[in-house]
């Protein structure tokens, strides 16, 4: 067999020829102020997990309130003090809990925790780079994120407590410090925290894009990149283009709160006092917020989609079905996600014609989403599916994405949104499609790349337990909420006892709360597994899942610079699983096509004259061999 390496496209890409010898690391530079993308990824992960647990506990607190609105729990007063006088949550603190839960989950867990972790970990490893384009800026992005988390949490320790106007912080509630307890100092801290967070996201995003565009190894052209990298790349572009708009919105809001401007305020009377602000519009803020806010939901879900696509392919032992379609659908979602924001504002009173336009663009985005779903199903079809915990979570993601995505069609329809807007139907929809699905993508990623991160394996049985309790629990929590929404039950209500018609949902609420508690407890199995495995887990081999991508060619032992010698070159796409004619059911991206002639297909040599010539020679040799026989 010829040993000639048939190079495809991509010649001329940046190829670092260093040998991985970076600066000497001390404890401080290795674990705290690390500039190694792998360590920064782990820092994002650990912080994200910590924040997720905090947000989860907050959600359990308000779920208990919803399940038992008429009961007092003295323990709550002990734990929460003035926020739970006489053992019952203060109604304004309830809103703060909802606000901070949403903020933490959307921004700190599902954006930074998910994208920050896996973009950092995987981009250099999967494209074949020694590190990010700017390791120092990468380090700063983590520490800005950490600062943002610290500021957000600090708001629990101030007199009036954390911000309470909901995670969307619509003014005037967020702009008038006297409007409610949560509009005061807590709101200011929220805004400052978000400025830090956005700065972190921008630094991260710019690094991801520049690394992917400039630092791919030899042979790694765009169509040889794993879907994870495509997802991280497009997510980073989304963030870079949309987050600055939120910064603008937030800065103007700070001006309105503190300096007497009225970008978002007009015609307001608070507590009988006529305010001097005129000429602004609260709806302007909503436009600015949702210009980020809607891409944000894709910033959350796209990395999860990329991760699950990768994991499904590896564990089905099949190429991802319709790789190009998967990429184009990601691009389609990226572009469309910028022109759908108005569907969050159908009932604000904006021009109805505009509502019609946003309805059309919103429903169009369902097409690339449907393509992705069907392609995942086709990937599973006739596969040879290994049920690793990562694979279970990836399958769970598809199930959630179907369930939650379908209800998006209702909410994207302006006429139906009139009745469903801001009800529990919306809560059910987004918790399934971008809450549960994205969390499952994140957990799938953690289980799958844990050996890469820590050089050890997580316990599979605990992973199974974690998956099933969480999967069933999430459905039990969110599925009944659709019906509450169809009964017109508004979200963010402190108690269900004030409206006679809502009392019929009390028992359902109790049930949901208990399902949530069980799901929450299951996360402790994960936490135990995670921490225990870091120190005592079974040692990992270099490529434990028999995957094709570049990160599994790097040594188990971490090395700042990723590969000890030359960065490996890439010769093929990452999804050559179970290729007919190949000896094994996986062929790594670093295996030259010339080493697998019996399994190559003409498509492998597209636009590659040298390769086609090699194929022709090999075919002729085969023919002559047969003739001799």
């Amino acid at each position, binding site marked *: 067999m010829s040993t000639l390496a048939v190079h495809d496209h991509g010649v001329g890409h940046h190829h670092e020829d260093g040998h991985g010898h970076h600066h000497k690391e001390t404890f401080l530079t290795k674990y705290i102020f690390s500039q190694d993308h792998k360590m920064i990824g782990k820092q994002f992960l650990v912080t994200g997990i910590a924040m997720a647990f905090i947000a989860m506990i907050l959600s359990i607190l308000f779920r208990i309130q919803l399940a038992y609105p*008429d009961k007092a729990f*003295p*323990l709550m007063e002990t734990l929460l003090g003035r926020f739970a006088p006489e*053992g019952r949550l203060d109604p*304004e603190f309830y*809103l703060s809990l909802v606000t901070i839960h949403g903020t933490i989950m959307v921004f700190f867990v599902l954006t930074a925790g998910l994208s920050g972790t896996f973009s950092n970990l995987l981009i250099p490893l999967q494209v074949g780079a020694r590190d990010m384009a700017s390791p120092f800026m990468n380090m700063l992005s983590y520490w800005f994120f950490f600062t943002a988390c610290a500021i957000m949490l600090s708001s629990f320790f101030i007199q009036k407590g954390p911000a309470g106007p909901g995670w969307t912080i*619509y003014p*005037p*509630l967020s702009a008038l410090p006297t*409007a409610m*307890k949560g509009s005061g100092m807590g709101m200011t801290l929220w805004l400052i925290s978000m400025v830090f967070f956005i700065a972190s996201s921008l630094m991260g995003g710019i690094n991801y894009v520049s690394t992917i565009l400039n630092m791919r190894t030899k042979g790694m052209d765009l169509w040889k990149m794993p879907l994870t990298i495509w997802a991280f790349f497009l997510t980073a572009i989304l963030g870079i283009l949309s987050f600055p708009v939120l910064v603008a919105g937030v800065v103007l809001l700070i001006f309105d709160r503190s300096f007497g401007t009225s970008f978002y305020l*007009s015609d*307001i009377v608070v507590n009988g006092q*006529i305010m001097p602000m005129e000429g602004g519009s*609260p*709806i302007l803020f909503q436009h600015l917020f949702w210009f980020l806010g809607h891409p944000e939901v894709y910033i959350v879900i796209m990395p999860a989609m990329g991760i699950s696509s990768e994991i499904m392919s590896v564990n*089905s032992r*099949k*190429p*991802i079905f319709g*790789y190009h*379609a998967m990429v184009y659908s990601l691009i389609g979602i990226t572009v469309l996600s910028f022109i759908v924001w108005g569907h969050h504002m159908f009932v604000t*009173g904006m021009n*109805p014609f505009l509502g019609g336009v946003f309805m059309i663009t919103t*429903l169009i985005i*369902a*097409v690339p989403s*449907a393509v992705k779903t069907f392609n995942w199903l086709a990937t*599973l*079809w*006739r*596969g040879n*599916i*290994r*049920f690793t915990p990562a694979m279970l979570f990836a*399958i769970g993601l598809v*199930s959630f994405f*179907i*369930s939650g995505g379908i209800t998006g*069609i209702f909410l994207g*329809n*302006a006429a139906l949104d009139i*009745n469903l*807007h*801001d009800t529990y139907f919306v809560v059910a929809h987004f918790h399934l499609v971008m809450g549960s699905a994205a969390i499952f993508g994140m957990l799938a990623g953690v289980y799958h790349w844990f050996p890469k991160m820590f050089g050890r394996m997580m316990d599979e049985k605990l992973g*199974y337990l974690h998956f099933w309790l969480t999967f069933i629990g999430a*459905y039990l929590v969110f*599925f*009944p909420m659709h*019906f509450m929404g169809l*009964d*017109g039950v*508004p979200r963010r*209500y402190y108690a269900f006892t*004030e*409206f006679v*018609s809502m009392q019929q949902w009390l028992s359902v609420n109790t049930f949901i709360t208990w399902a949530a508690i069980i799901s929450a407890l299951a996360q402790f199995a994960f936490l135990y597994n995670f921490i225990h495995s870091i120190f005592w887990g079974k040692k990992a081999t270099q490529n434990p899942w028999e995957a094709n991508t570049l990160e599994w060619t790097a040594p188990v032992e971490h090395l700042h610079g990723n590969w000890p010698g030359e960065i490996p070159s890439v010769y093929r796409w990452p999804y050559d699983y*179970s*290729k007919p004619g190949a000896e094994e*059911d996986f062929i790594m991206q670093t295996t030259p096509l010339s080493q697998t002639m019996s399994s190559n297909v003409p498509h492998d040599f597209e636009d590659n004259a040298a390769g086609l010539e090699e194929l022709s020679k090999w075919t002729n040799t085969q023919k002559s061999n047969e003739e001799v026989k």
Partner: protein
Amino acid sequence: MGFKQLIDSKKMLSLLAVLMLTGTNMVMAQAAATATEEKPGVDWLSVSYYILLFVLACIAVAVVGKILRVYDLSQKIQGKAGINWNTVMAVLFIGFLLAGLAGVYWSFTVHGNMILPGAASLHGVKIDAMFWTTTSITMVVFVLTQILLFTFVFIYKYSPKRRAYFLPHNNTIEKVWTIAPAIVLTVLVIFGFFTWQEVTNSADAKGEPASINVDITGEQFAWNLRYPGPDGLLGKKNYKLISGANKLGIDFNDKNSLDDLKADTMVIPVNKSVRLNISSKDIIHSVYMPHFRVQLNAVPGLPTFFKFTPTVTTEQMRNKLENPEFEYLVYCNKICGASHYNMQKVVRVVSEAEYAQWLAKQQPYLTPALRTELKLAEVSNNNNSTKRLALNN
């Protein structure tokens, strides 16, 4: 800490005992007022019991885990394959599918009966039709795709004897499942677009059948109502005129405002179009009347309106629901502060005659006290004219 050590740990056991002993009444005692209402035997709410339950559940899981491990090892010692976790997971998935589908059916039949009754407004009927069309289409997709997903993972579970089918792409199939959703969504978009247009179309602006104007203003935490008086026209408002007596800031320089009425309940006649003029004094609220499929934000500085025609009287709805206590309500559906969860106002749909009677009894907004405060002269000499239906604006 190993499992054996955990069981043997005296500290853990002591802690558990302390929790057991102190928990019931001290840690989670209910407030005295509510405790008296509780039925006997609610001590199970105690935190210590929950911790105990949690510990027991953990022990049960650990025991099951150990049993499985022992079984697995003994099988392997005997040269057998041990537990095939791939098969276990596949079976669990198919079990989940069957249980899930049964659960969905149960939820539709039980929870589905708890949702809002059919719309009590003209446009609401169209929204309902749109809803059920969308539900029918999406439910088919939902059930089919979930069945495919879990059936595939069940059928194609790992086998060392089998190799997966190499299928990187198929352009025809991909075209089909790109175009098919596009067609379905196009239908929904067209249907939705026209429904939306009908709902939001400003008939008043085109001189179509006149509406009854009702002014609804949100504030923390109440809805204020204003009806036009005998002239059928609502006077202008100006937030700068808001004062203790003039809560809505009515501009009495506008003569149309002199006969405006205030109301505690939103009473509206059946089968007459109603135009809700929506505004807010302080922050964003949302006028939400789910039975009528009406919702629109109340935004300070941005007056909005929603026009609808109620078709079912309160009495008819009470009979339909077999609930003599039933009332239509308007909620606040936008987070607005401490009492957001209880910002409600009764909406009563009555016959036209009842509406006329009710309207005749309503007090004018311009009370003598307000007149004094505003130093208004007796403006109108025609106040003794009979109040009439406000059917035009």
